């Protein structure tokens, strides 16, 4: 029990150290937050433009879609804030042999490699997302809303974060095999790009359905945002219950798979330059 309890304490220390580090360059920190918000504003602007020409996209009207975007922002800010800097560092650790240092520590290696650095500035978007969500919810017709959705929404956001984390960490772990994985970020961007749209748009032809199937069941990035967003914007539609159930299964399977991939990759780690 004592062993297990030290992980929250360690996480707290990691978070504190990262914050101290970020606060050393305060102006830079502020600019990063602002530019993150800037990107999101541009993205939002794009959809406001699109919705000026159409009333809805595959059944999502403007404010429902704002909920979707807010969900995207919640999940992305958490993933980028907590895991992105670590995943990027992992390939660097493999290349330089710094991974030895992490392996020698008397704690779980995956835990350490996943959470050592926290990028606080990415969490700025989290608050903007909250404002956007509140604004969008005010404009939604809330008949059929159910109190339980407000508990399920954060839960499914957490599921989404964990699925994305698993994908990212698996990708990062492949750098142990490949020696170097510079295009990790590119790859990541192109895969998650599929997740940032309502899954209904992938349809109408064979390519659409196969994309939808692959990104739901093989690399489950499509459910990451779709399930929580739907839970909040159009809750409790019976035809989507199976998807919400599947999301839980997918989260567990992704986590287990990423751990397995990481362990396998570690076995073939040959320390470099030390």
């Amino acid at each position: 029990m004592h062993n297990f309890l030290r992980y929250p304490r360690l996480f707290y220390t990691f978070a504190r150290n990262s914050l101290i580090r970020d606060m050393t360059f305060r102006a830079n920190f502020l600019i990063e937050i602002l530019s993150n918000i800037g990107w999101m504003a541009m993205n939002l602007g794009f959809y406001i433009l699109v919705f000026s020409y159409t009333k809805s996209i595959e059944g999502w009207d403007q404010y429902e879609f704002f909920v979707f975007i807010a969900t995207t922002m919640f999940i992305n800010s958490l993933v980028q804030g907590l895991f992105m800097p670590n995943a990027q560092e992992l390939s660097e650790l493999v290349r330089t042999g710094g991974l030895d240092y992490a392996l020698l520590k008397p704690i779980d290696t995956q835990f350490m490699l996943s959470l050592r650095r926290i990028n606080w500035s990415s969490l700025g978007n989290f608050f903007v997302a909250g404002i956007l969500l509140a604004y969008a919810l005010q404009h939604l017709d809330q008949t059929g809303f159910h109190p339980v959705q407000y508990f399920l929404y954060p839960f499914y956001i957490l599921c989404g974060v964990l699925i994305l984390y698993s994908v990212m960490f698996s990708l990062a772990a492949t750098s142990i095999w490949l020696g170097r994985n510079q295009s990790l970020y590119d790859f990541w961007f192109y895969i998650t790009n599929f997740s940032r749209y309502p899954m209904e748009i992938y349809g109408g032809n064979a390519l659409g359905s196969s994309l939808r199937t692959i990104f739901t069941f093989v690399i489950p990035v499509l459910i990451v945002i779709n399930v929580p967003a739907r839970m909040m914007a159009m809750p409790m539609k019976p035809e989507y219950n199976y998807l919400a159930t599947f999301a839980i299964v997918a989260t567990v399977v992704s986590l287990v798979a990423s751990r397995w991939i990481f362990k396998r990759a570690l076995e073939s780690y040959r320390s470099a330059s030390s």
Partner: protein
Amino acid sequence: MYARAQTWWTILRICIEERLVYRGDFALGTLMRFLPIITQIFLWTSVYAAAGQGDIRGYTRDDVIAYYLLTMVGRAFSSMPGLASGIARQIRDGEIKKFLIQPIDLLGFLLLARIAHKLVYYGVAIGPFALVFFLCGNYFTNGWPEASVLAAFVASLVMAFLLGLFLEAAIGMIGFWFLEVSSLLFVYMLFNFFFSGHMFPLEFLTGYLPDWLQTVAHYQPLQFLAYFPAAVFLGKIEGPELVEGLCVQAAWVMVFFVVCRVAMRRGFQRYSGYGG
């Protein structure tokens, strides 16, 4: 004159060889870059289906997709990855000194290095590009444009390359004054993303702008990096408008060329040679 040409040729050759080292990574990266297009096809198909009208500000769904593909070509010419940040880094760590000592012009070197990069890029990327354009041929409902339009398209692409180069180099030169330009570059990329027409045909936006902003939007330089060549190819800009557009683009190339030169000269004067 001959010696100079030889120097330039050598620089070009070295840069080409340097780029060819990573050709495998390169080809894969290029093909992956088309993946977001797939999402865009599905997104715009949904938008047009829901909008219930055949065209939005003169663009049909097929036009929009063709437009996206063409902006990829435009950006293949105009995007300069790492140029501004590279210059700023060289200023910061002192590497830029070599241009003060060696008889090589910094801007000339950058131009040649980028030509080399682009030549290698096209050499490798032409495969993926040809494949994608062949697969998506149906979206080009009007087929190939006339020879004159094609010539204008090529001219606008070449100028897009020069504009992208001088614009980013100018931003990099700011490093002489501020050392760190990454946040500035971020702001630039933000505007570039929106106003180069990389996300949507700019007509979608300009219709909503007040008059005075429309004038600004009509002449702003970023549109020539992606929107303008694509719109020319699709025949959205024709006749006198096309000629005017090309002239404005040429003017912007000159402006940023001069800005670069002046900034470089001024920058070297105040440069104090810090770093290695």
